[in-house]
């Protein structure tokens, strides 16, 4: 892009463009209210008395550890595997692209429990791939922390891929072409040009994937099981506690919520301001 007469050189983003119109502020505020009010009432309704006790308890700490670990690995898997997939879908014209694009969106549509069932049919010890694996290496996937990561990745990756594909399309192919004329391989152009320009979409996608992974339990419980210290994540723990003591479950939800909001607020504003 050529240097503009300073679109964007103003001190406060957008302020010189006039006040945001009511026709956007009102529905925007309604959306915000819809999202925020239930959270606030949930917070108000939480029995905060035993918050610290719960936070310190062994199963909660174990679940937090598993959750942090698996969601981090899931985001990593999305970045490493999902980014190339999004790029292929956005930039490369191959046979079956539109079928693949639809297929990528399918795990979004599956109820999580069914997603778990699908993973069992593929990677369970009698699954198509899983039985092969078991015969050749003796390894089984279910009931391991790896299984949790696989379940999370299966569920979260589509969010990541769709979001990044959208950003790649929005950014356009123009600078890829410029990079090619400067002798860049596609890989070099991808790293140095395509990806940096689509960074807001990558960040959004990573947040989506991470959040989805944090909240997931249907597929996890179905495919990986629910055992403290290996496969029990915070949502699984919360779900099981809901059956017994909803008040405790709510406190646990608050723990999950505060931890994740903390991380989100910290990371996201940093990412967004630098990119």
């Amino acid at each position, binding site marked *: 892009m050529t240097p*503009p*007469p*300073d*679109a964007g*050189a*103003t001190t406060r983003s957008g302020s*010189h*463009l006039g006040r945001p119109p009511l026709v956007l502020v009102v529905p925007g505020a309604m959306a915000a209210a819809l999202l925020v009010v239930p959270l606030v009432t949930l917070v108000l309704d939480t029995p905060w008395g035993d918050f610290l006790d719960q936070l310190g308890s062994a199963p909660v700490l174990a679940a937090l550890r598993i959750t942090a670990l698996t969601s981090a690995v899931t985001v990593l898997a999305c970045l490493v595997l999902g980014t190339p997939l999004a790029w292929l879908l956005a930039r490369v014209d191959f046979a079956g692209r539109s079928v693949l694009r639809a297929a990528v969106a399918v795990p979004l549509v599956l109820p999580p429990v069914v997603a778990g069932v699908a993973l069992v049919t593929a990677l369970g010890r009698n699954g198509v791939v899983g039985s092969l694996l078991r015969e050749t290496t003796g390894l089984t996937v279910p009931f391991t922390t790896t299984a949790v990561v696989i379940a999370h990745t299966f569920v979260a990756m589509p969010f990541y891929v769709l979001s990044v594909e959208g950003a790649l399309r929005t950014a356009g192919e123009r600078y890829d072409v410029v990079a090619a004329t400067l002798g860049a391989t596609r890989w070099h152009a991808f790293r140095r040009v395509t990806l940096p320009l689509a960074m807001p979409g990558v960040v959004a996608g990573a947040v989506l994937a991470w959040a989805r992974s944090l909240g997931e339990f249907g597929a996890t419980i179905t495919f990986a099981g629910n055992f403290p210290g290996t496969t029990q994540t915070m949502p699984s723990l919360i779900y099981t506690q809901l059956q017994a003591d909803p008040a405790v479950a709510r406190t646990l939800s608050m723990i999950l919520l505060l931890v994740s909001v903390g991380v989100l607020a910290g990371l996201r504003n940093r990412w967004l301001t630098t990119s």
Partner: protein
Amino acid sequence: MADHLVTGSEEALSGPGRATGPGLHARVRVPGRLDAEVTAAGGSVVAVIGPNGAGKSTLLGALAGTTAMAGEVEVGGRSWTAPPLAVRHRRVGLVFQDQSLFPHLSALENVAFGLRARGRARTPARARAQEWLDRLGVGELAARRPRQLSGGQAQRVAIARALATEPELLLLDEPFSGLDVGVATALRIELARHLADFAGVALLVTHHALDALTLADEVLVLDGGRVAQTGTPRDVAAHPLTDHVARLVGLNVVVDADTNRSFPPSAVTVSLRAPEGSARNRWRASVLSVVPHGDAVRLLARTDGAQELIADVTPEAAVELGLDPGREVWLTVKETSVRTYPRTASMRP
């Protein structure tokens, strides 16, 4: 950077009670980039010239409200800065240096955009847009997206878009760059005609002496973010205060202590051996380039003091002297052809 910072005394100047006619009066400060004052009567055309990075586009952006500034802007007797007027309420027509056509809209829709945005109905807006495209010679490209246009075609669409909304303040940032000579000439005339009927003020950024001289009533020379000179085109052309202007109008300017000494290329004599004459008007130089210039041949040479000078000689003389690049020559100029006037220190770092 303070946004539209206005001090008490400035407020008095631009307060609502004080109408100063349909012209433009602005004092613009953009820290590190520009600190300039512009005044122009209604209906006048101001050519803004200056080297790259002088602050020309910054000035236009500040007037349009897209660049944050301190100071005040008053157009048609109304202040645009106290209170600050939103960009969209400033009736400007802005041709961006890089065109900035909407990539998702056709040429026609681009031109119609401003009309639609200001409430014109779809059909008349499109009809009017088509007229403007026709006037600029790109009527048959109306349905094309910007990326399907050549550079010059896009430039014309951008000009049509800026003119179509009938602005109060016309801000043209190198509108003729990238246009072929024929179109540029036609457009200069079209624009001159348009500007003649135009009650508002037009600012025209240009790197071409011709534009400044043919279209403008006033010239504003910027250098290093400050106003280096103002005046009528003829004035400025005759007494260039900056190297940039001198080069622009095709004069040689050499500096001698506190004075500028300017002389036309035709006053320079080229010879192979050291001529007589005062050292002040005599240089050893090596030829950089030789090109036809009208009926003459124009020579660009660099003196031993690293000064570039131009000289016009007859084609016969050029052949006779063997004036090819690299050739060592002597340049002399008669004192009678030299105009001397005070030098203003260049304000550029």
